[in-house]
C-alpha cells in the first residue's frame, strides 16, 4: 500500500529532490551550465517516472492529492513545459555575468507548485500549489531587475503581478472559507454529498464558488481579470513569459475543471451565467485589443486571453453534454495551446537575450527572407492559433465546435466565430510583415546561429503542432481514456 503511494508521488518526490539538489549545488559551486544541466536532467527524470506511475493509477495519495490519468497528463505537460523553459532560459541568461543560477531553483519550485496544483483534490493542496507557483513567479518575473542591462521593465511587471495575485489569492481564500463554512468539507469529491446534506441552498456556497472561480480566472487571465496579462507578459523575461503562458495556465485550468466537475458547481445557473459572460468577453475583448498591439509579447498576451475564452466554452459545455467529451476537448486544446505558445516564445527567444529583446512587430519585418526556418515555425504557430487545418489548433477548434454544437451553446459559438474572425486579422498581419522584403539590418539578430536548446524546443514544438494536426488519432485515444473517469 505504502509502496504504491511512493510510486504514485514519485513525480512530486523527484521534483522536490531536484530542487534541493540544485539549491545545494548552487551553494557549493556557481556554474550556469552545470545548474541548468542539472535542472533539465532532474526534470527529465521526474517526467520519465510516469512510466512507473501509470500502472498503479488511479490512487488518492493522501486526502490532499489525487493521481489519476488526468492529473498525470497535466503533470507531464507541466514538467515538459518546464524543461522547454529551462532550455530557453540558458542562452537567454548566459550572456549576463550576474547570478543566474537561482533562476533554476525558482523554476523548480514553481513547477513543483504547478504539479501539486494539477493533482490537488482538496482546497488545502489547491492553495498550497497556487501560492508555491505564485510566489516563485513573482521572483521569476522580476528576476532580471538587478542586472546591469535589462531588456525590459521587470520590476513593474513583478510588482503588478504580486499585488494583483495577492489580492485574488485573498479573494480565493475567502471563497474557500465560505464554501467550508457552508458545507464543512474541503475535499472536492465530498462536496456534492455535503451539499445534499446541507439541504437548503443559500447563496453563500455559490458566492464562495464564484470567488474561487475569480481566483482561477485571474491566473487564466479571463476578462475581467486579465488586466495584468499584457504588462506582465511584456515586462517579464521571455522564458518567464513562456512559463506564464503555458505551465501556469495549464495547472490552473486542470484544477479548475476538476473542481467544477467534481463539485457539480456547473449545476448552478449563476455559475454558468458568470462563466458564459467571462468566456464571451474574453473572446471578444482579447481579440479586439490584440488588434492594437505592436509588441509581439503583448499580442500573445491578448491572444492568450481570447484562447482561454475559447477553452472556457468547452468547460461550460460540460454542463450540457457528457463531461468526458468536455474533459477530452479541454485537455487537447490546452496541450495544443501549450505547444503553440512554447514554439512562439521559442522564436522570440531565438533572437533575444537578457540585454535586448526583439519583440516589436517591426523586428519581424522580412523574417521570412532573413531566417526562413524561424519564420516558417512562427507562421505555423500563427496559423495554428488561427485554427487552420493541418495544425493542432484546428483539431482543438474542432473540439470546441463539437462540444458547443452538442451543448447547444449558440451564443458562445457566435462569439467564437466573431472572435476568430477578428483574430485572423492580427495573425495575418504578423505573417504579412514577415513576408515583406527584408530591410538591410547592420546587426541582424536573426542571422546569428540559433542556440541549440532553443532550436530543439522550436523543432519539437513545431513538429508537435503539425503532428497533432495531421495524426491526432493516437493522442485522442489517450485523452479519451483519461477523460472516461469523469
Amino acid at each position: 500500500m505504502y509502496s504504491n503511494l511512493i510510486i504514485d508521488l514519485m513525480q512530486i518526490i523527484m521534483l522536490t529532490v531536484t530542487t534541493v539538489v540544485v539549491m545545494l549545488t548552487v551553494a557549493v559551486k556557481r556554474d550556469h551550465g552545470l545548474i541548468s544541466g542539472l535542472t533539465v536532467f532532474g526534470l527529465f527524470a521526474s517526467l520519465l517516472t510516469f512510466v512507473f506511475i501509470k500502472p498503479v493509477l488511479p490512487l488518492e495519495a493522501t486526502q490532499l492529492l489525487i493521481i489519476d490519468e488526468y492529473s498525470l497528463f497535466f503533470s507531464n505537460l507541466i514538467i515538459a513545459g518546464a524543461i522547454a523553459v529551462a532550455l530557453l532560459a540558458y542562452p537567454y541568461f548566459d550572456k549576463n555575468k550576474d547570478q543566474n543560477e537561482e533562476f533554476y531553483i525558482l523554476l523548480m519550485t514553481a513547477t513543483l507548485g504547478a504539479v501539486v496544483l494539477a493533482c490537488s483534490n482538496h482546497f488545502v493542496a489547491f492553495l498550497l500549489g497556487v501560492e508555491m507557483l505564485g510566489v516563485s513567479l513573482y521572483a521569476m518575473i522580476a528576476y532580471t531587475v538587478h542586472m546591469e542591462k535589462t531588456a525590459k521593465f521587470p520590476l513593474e511587471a513583478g510588482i503588478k503581478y504580486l499585488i494583483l495575485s495577492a489580492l485574488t489569492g485573498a479573494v480565493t481564500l475567502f471563497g474557500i472559507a465560505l464554501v467550508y463554512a457552508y458545507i464543512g468539507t474541503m475535499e472536492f469529491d465530498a462536496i456534492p454529498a455535503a451539499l445534499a446534506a446541507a439541504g437548503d441552498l443559500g447563496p453563500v456556497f455559490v458566492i464562495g464558488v464564484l470567488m474561487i472561480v475569480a481566483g482561477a480566472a485571474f491566473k487564466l487571465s479571463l476578462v475581467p481579470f486579465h488586466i495584468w496579462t499584457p504588462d506582465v507578459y511584456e515586462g517579464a523575461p521571455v522564458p518567464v513569459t513562456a512559463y506564464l503562458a503555458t505551465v501556469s495556465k495549464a495547472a490552473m485550468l486542470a484544477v479548475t475543471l476538476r473542481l467544477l466537475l467534481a463539485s457539480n458547481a456547473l449545476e448552478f445557473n449563476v455559475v454558468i451565467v458568470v462563466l458564459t459572460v467571462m468566456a464571451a468577453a474574453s473572446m471578444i475583448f482579447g481579440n479586439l485589443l490584440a488588434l492594437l498591439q505592436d509588441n509581439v509579447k503583448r499580442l500573445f498576451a491578448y491572444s492568450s486571453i481570447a484562447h482561454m475564452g475559447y477553452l472556457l466554452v468547452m468547460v461550460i459545455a460540460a454542463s450540457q453534454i457528457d463531461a468526458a467529451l468536455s474533459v477530452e476537448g479541454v485537455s487537447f486544446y490546452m496541450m495544443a495551446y501549450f505547444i503553440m505558445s512554447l514554439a512562439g516564445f521559442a522564436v522570440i527567444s531565438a533572437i533575444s537575450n537578457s540585454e535586448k529583446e526583439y519583440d516589436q512587430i517591426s523586428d519581424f519585418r522580412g523574417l521570412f527572407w532573413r531566417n526562413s526556418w524561424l519564420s516558417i515555425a512562427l507562421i505555423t504557430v500563427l496559423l495554428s492559433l488561427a485554427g487552420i487545418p493541418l495544425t493542432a489548433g484546428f483539431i482543438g477548434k474542432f473540439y470546441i465546435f463539437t462540444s458547443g454544437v452538442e451543448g447547444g451553446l449558440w451564443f458562445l459559438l457566435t462569439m467564437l466565430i466573431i472572435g476568430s474572425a477578428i483574430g485572423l486579422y492580427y495573425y495575418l498581419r504578423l505573417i504579412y510583415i514577415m513576408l515583406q522584403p527584408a530591410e538591410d539590418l547592420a546587426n541582424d539578430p536573426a542571422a546569428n546561429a540559433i542556440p541549440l536548446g532553443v532550436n530543439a524546443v522550436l523543432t519539437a514544438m513545431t513538429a508537435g503542432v503539425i503532428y497533432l494536426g495531421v495524426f491526432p488519432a493516437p493522442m485522442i485515444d489517450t485523452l479519451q481514456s483519461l477523460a472516461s473517469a469523469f
Partner: protein
Amino acid sequence: MILVWLIVILFAGGIGALVAEKRSAELPRVIALATLLLDLFLVVLMLFAPGTLGLDAGSQIDLGQTGEWLVLTSSDWIPQFGVSFIFGADGLGLLLIALTVFLGLMSLGSAWHEIKERTGFFYFNLLWTLAGVIGVFTALDLFLFFFFWEVMLIPMYFIIAIWGHENKEYAAMKFFIFTQVSGMLMLLSILVLAFFHYQSAGVFSFSYFDLLGTELPEGVGFWVMLGFFVAFATKLPAVPFHNWLPDAHSQAPTPGSVILAGILLKTGAYGLIRFTIPLFPEVSMAFAPTAMTIGVISILYTAKVAFSQNDLKRLIAYTSVSHMGFVLLGVYSWTAQGVQGAVMTMLAHGFSAAALFMLAGGLQHRIHTRQMDKMGGLWGVAPKMGFMALFFTVAAVGMPGLGNFIGEFLVLLGTFRISSAAAALAAIGMVVAAVYSLIVIQKVFHGENKNNLAFEDLTGVEMFCFGLMMIGLLWMGFYPQSMLDMSEPTLRSMGVLFFQ
C-alpha cells in the same frame, strides 16, 4: 488511389520547386511544368483510357454510394470522429479536375516570364493551391473537404501577399478573412449535420454518403443549409458576398488571377451542386427562389458596376461575378438544362476569364498600368494581343459557337421552366455584357494611342497558351455534348429534374 496520386504529385512537386530554388532561379518553373504535365497525363488517361489505370466497375469500393463513381477510395484518418479519407470522382468531378490541371498549366505559362523573384516559393504556392483545389473536387468526407477548402486558401494568400500589386496587403487580408469566416460557418454546419446524423444513426461520420438524407429537425435544416450556402456563395461569389473579389483579382499577380478566376470560383459552384442541394433537398428548394433572386441581382448589379470601372482587371473581376450569377441561377433552377448550363458556364468561363486575366496581366506587365484611360490604339502596337482580346471578349459575351454561349443559353432555358421572370431579367444581363465588353475593346485597342505606348506583342509561350484556350472554347461551343454526357449521370443521381 489515382486521385490521391494526383494530389500527392502536386504536393511533392511544390516541395521540389521550393528546394530547387537553391540551385537556380529557373529550375522551379521547370519542375512545376513537369509536375503539371505528369498530372495532365494522368487526367487524360482517366478521361480517355480509364482501363489502363485499372479504373472499371470492379475498382470501386462499396460505400453505399449512389451515382456512377469512376473512382472511389477510402481509408481511416481519425476514426474517433468518424473522419476518413474518401476520395471519389464522377463525371462532374473529372471535368473540373481536368479544368484545374489545364488552367494550372495556363497560369504557369503566364508566370513563366512574369515571376522573377523567389521563384521556388512561388511555384510551391501555385502547386499547393492546385493540390487543394483537386482535393476539394474529390474529397467526399466533409471533414476532408473542409481541410482542402482551407489548404487552397493559404498558398493563395501568400501568392497575393508576396507577388501582388500596390495594394496587396489589403486585398490578401480581405480575401483570407472572407473565405475563412464563411468557411467557419460551413464547419459549424458540417458539425451540426454530423451531430444530428450521430443522434439518428448512433455513429459519428463525416462521409458524404452517410450524411446524405440525414433528417434534420424543423427549423434547424434551414440554418445548416445556410452555413453551406454562405461559404459557397462567398467563394462563387454572389452579391452581397462578392466584395473581396475585385480587390483580390486586381491585386494578385497574373498567375494568381488566372487561378482565382479560372478555378477557385468554381469550387463555390461545385460545392453548391455537390453538397448544398443534395444534402438539404427540401430546404434548398424552398430557398431556391431567394437564391435565384440573388443570382439575377449578381448578374445585373455587377454588370452595371463593371461598366463603370476604369481598372481593366477590376472590370474583368466584376464580369466574373456577373457570369457566376448565371451559374447560381442555373444551379438553383435544379433542372437538367439549368445545371448542365451551369457546369458548361463554369468550364467556359474558366477558359475565357483566365485568358482575359492573362491579357490584362500581360498588358500591365508591359505598360505598368491597368487604367484604361491611359491606353488606346493598342491594336496597332500589338495586333496579336488585340485579336486575342477580341476573341475572348466575344466568347465571354456569349457568341454562339463558343462554350460560354452554350452554358448561358442552357441556364436561361432551364431557368425559364421554373421562373420566366428570372430568365428574362438574366437575359438582359447578356445584353449589358455586350456593352461593357465592347467598351473594353474600344478603349484599349481602338482610338488614338495618346501616350505613344509601344511594346512587344505576345510571346510564343503566350500565343501557345491562348491558342490552346481558343481550341477549348471552340470545342465546347461546337461539341458540348461530349461534356454534357459526362456530367449527366452525376446530375441524375442527385435528383436533378429531367424533363422529357
